């Protein structure tokens, strides 16, 4: 006998009573509000200001053994650039020591016969980059290229050289034109906060009722499963929207991220994703019936994938095929795709329709599974 066969239709009065109850519990439990409202603020600040793939004021040792004006001219770009903080040195020995201690990220080395080489048309500027942080190294390398390239262009414009730039540096990285990764991070940040708000908060609520034995009393009332589930979703949905609002405001006014697509679409797709994430948490909670276990599982199956596998931090085109395959079945991947498109590229309808469809399907499946796992029956 399945429990579903004898369900009465949903009662608004009971639903209202349950939503009131959930809201009171949510508001009174300070830890919930911390996760729901305070954590988004902290995440916005950390990710917005702390986590940045931009390189600014990187300490660079400038070793010029040649004191000629030409040599000084080459390195002048490093002194003026906001990306570098240049430290003039005369000995390569000192520069190496600083590099070993990681007090400088790179060394620009002009040998004593630089002006003579330049006159001969094939001068060498050595750029040594600290390679431990590969990402940063590549950025620095490219900036160095830029700095020296500018000098070459200037020189060419002044008509002092008809030949090819005398220095060769290879570039393997492209940037966004503003050199600003925050633009790229804010949409990802919204995904993280929606996931965290949704899954982590709701993962606790059903398990808490099992642990405290409150469901046993609740079950022996006219309440039905639909009402219990909807009542659990509503207040957390509202908290999620508050988090979303904060992210959008921070994106616009703090980080000046452009919103090239429709704001309404951003809000709509975020609501759908919020539903996915809330119902995932609720499903975990209903299945484990244990708060600790539920929160651990919620972190592993929702937050970490949203962080690592959604294309937020690591580009999905550069990960192994297996990982890409996994990320293709995870809802956050589609949400990240949709948001980055909406923020940075604009309304690309085909892509957005696909993303919406996937997210709506995920929400429906997860809610159905939660319903199956919340029958009014004990052990």
């Amino acid at each position, binding site marked *: 006998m399945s429990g579903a066969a004898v369900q009465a239709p949903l009662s608004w009065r*009971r639903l209202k009573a349950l939503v009131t109850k959930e809201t009171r519990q949510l508001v*009174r439990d300070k830890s919930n509000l911390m996760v729901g409202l305070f954590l988004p603020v902290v995440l916005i600040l950390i990710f917005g200001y702390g986590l940045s793939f931009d390189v600014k004021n990187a300490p660079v040792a400038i070793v010029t053994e040649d004191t000629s004006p030409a040599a000084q001219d080459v390195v002048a770009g490093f002194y003026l650039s906001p990306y570098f903080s240049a430290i003039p040195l005369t000995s390569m020995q000192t520069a190496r020591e600083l590099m070993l201690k990681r007090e400088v990220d790179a060394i620009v080395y002009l040998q004593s016969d630089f002006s003579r080489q330049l006159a001969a048309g094939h001068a060498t500027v050595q750029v040594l980059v600290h390679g431990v942080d590969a990402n940063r190294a590549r950025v620095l390398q490219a900036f160095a290229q830029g700095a020296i390239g500018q000098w070459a262009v200037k020189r060419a414009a002044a008509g002092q050289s008809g030949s090819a730039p005398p220095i060769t540096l290879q570039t393997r990285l492209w940037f966004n034109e503003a050199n600003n990764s925050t633009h790229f991070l804010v949409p990802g940040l919204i995904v993280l906060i929606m996931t965290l708000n949704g899954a982590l908060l709701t993962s606790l609520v059903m398990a808490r009722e099992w642990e405290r034995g409150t469901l046993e*009393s609740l079950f022996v009332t006219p309440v039905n499963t639909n009402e219990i589930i909807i009542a659990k979703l509503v207040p957390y949905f509202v908290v999620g929207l508050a988090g979303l609002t904060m992210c959008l405001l921070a994106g616009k006014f703090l980080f000046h991220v452009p919103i090239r697509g429709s704001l309404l679409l951003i809000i709509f797709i975020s609501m759908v994703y919020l539903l996915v994430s809330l119902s995932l948490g609720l499903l975990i909670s209903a299945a484990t019936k244990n708060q600790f276990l539920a929160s651990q599982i919620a972190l592993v199956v929702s937050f970490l994938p949203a962080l690592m596998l959604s294309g937020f931090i690591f580009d999905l085109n550069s990960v192994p095929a297996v990982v890409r395959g996994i990320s293709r079945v995870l809802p956050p991947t589609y949400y990240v795709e949709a948001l980055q498109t909406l923020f940075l590229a604009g309304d690309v309808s085909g892509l957005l329709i696909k993303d919406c469809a996937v997210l709506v399907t995920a929400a429906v499946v997860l809610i159905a599974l939660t319903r199956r796992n919340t029958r009014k029956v004990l052990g």
Partner: protein
Amino acid sequence: MTVTGGVAIVGSGLVKRFARDKKESITALDGVSFEARHGELTALVGPDGAGKTTLLRLVAGLMRTDEGTLRVLDLDAATQPQEIQNRISYMPQRFGLYEDLSVQENLDLYADLHGVSVEQRQERYPRLMEMTALAPFRERLAGKLSGGMKQKLGLACTLVRSPDLLLLDEPTVGVDPLSRRELWEIVSSLVENEGLSVVVSTSYMDEAERCAHVVVLHEGKVLADGVPSSISSRARGHSFIATSTQNESARALQARLIDREDVIDAVPQGGRVRAVLRAESAQSIPEATFEPAEPTLEDGLMLLLRQQTNAKPAAGAAIELADKPAPDREQVVIETHDVVRKFGDFTAVNRTSFEVRRGEVFGLLGPNGAGKTTTFRMLCGLLPATSGTLLVAGADLRTARAEARQNIGYVAQKFSLYGDITVRENLDFFAGAYGLRGARANERIDWAMDNFELSNRAGAATGKLPGGFQRRLAMAAALLHEPQIVFLDEPTSGADPLARREFWRRISSLADHGTTIVVTTHFMEEAEYCDRIMIQDAGTMLAIGTPDEVRQQAADESHPVATMEEAFIAIVEKSRDQVRAKDAA
């Protein structure tokens, strides 16, 4: 609302099995047939694991039977659970109050869920508030109520409308005698005045005695059912009150009697011992005189259990202890002087002084929130006193807490062993924690296994064992290092009559060998096992002395007092009246 006949519940041939693991399953109910009638109180009684809770959950539609049919209010429990749930109210053992909602909000939630109209509420709420005396606490969060108040609020939540059937699962476990009496007054008046149908499971026989109908369950089977007198009368001719002809305490006589094969049951009562004998005469028992007594339901139940299942209370529970030189029973081992403990502005324990001597069984009694647990924790060195002196086993708890702890064993109220390791591993761990090693540790663990009947499940994960077994293990662990003093905090809360006798038999043998016992309990009849008791309320010591002295102190008032429970209630109420009069003045 019309229900055919006078029957609220009819169950026949009910079987319910639970899978313990992949291979094994436990049969919780094994062919149970019973009836509960409309407008009556029906009690489900029986030892732990009898199937009382399972049966109530089946009736509430929270579980489905494996075999048999169950009709509740003329509805089929298997196919129409929601219809049943629309009409009944159910109070589980741990009532699901929302602790972060206030008293009023909890009530409103259940009223909304049951569709109680505003007019009905206006009529109902004042009555509920009057019955439960919760009116002053409407705005208080349920989590901040005392245990007894929580139970009353739970009951109020189930009564926000008039259910066609009320199910109560052990509603008074862990509730003090005063609150227990109040709860029963509420239920009885609803049955008498409104014809409410109630099914209640309980391990208090005096509660079952108030019911119109009693169903005795044992290991998933019905042993007997009928009016209480039909069960108690089985013991007619077997019930006696025994008086020792030697100069021995009631506890010593009780221990002597209960160990005998020809005695079915023995409990101390009013300084003497109530005994159920196998034969209808007592000629074979030396050094005691016996007068015939009116049998109680508990007498009848014990006889029934013995006859039908051969269960013998406290069989083999006497602990074997190494012979030691006779303890000096005059030696004071616990001495407290003007002890005060404050939490902020709140005084939990106020200027309390008492002494406990070697080998004494000392009982701490008091309503929920009286300060028992606080006193207890201070004696164990778990909580420092705000002022006053505490000497335990000769060590000052302010300066030599570690030294004092070496000599004490502590059994907490909640199960505090490691649930996911085995019985043996728990004992190994505690032996290590107490500094026992090698042969000595093994010797003590073997002793514990033998004397607490743990050997047959030594390799089982502790958390999966039944409650009674866990309680035995907790006590064994606390005794590994042969402490001079053992502290037990509500050790028999929720335990059935058999388990309680077994527990007290062990306590008696420990005390005989010179171990000092300090114990708290909500079962007032258990105070009769104590050499001396202390009654506290609102942090103040109200009475101290032997059970007889305390009874007499209460009896000095307007009416004579027969039982410990009556004495307790009289003393606490008198003190509360005085406090109220003083506040008013």
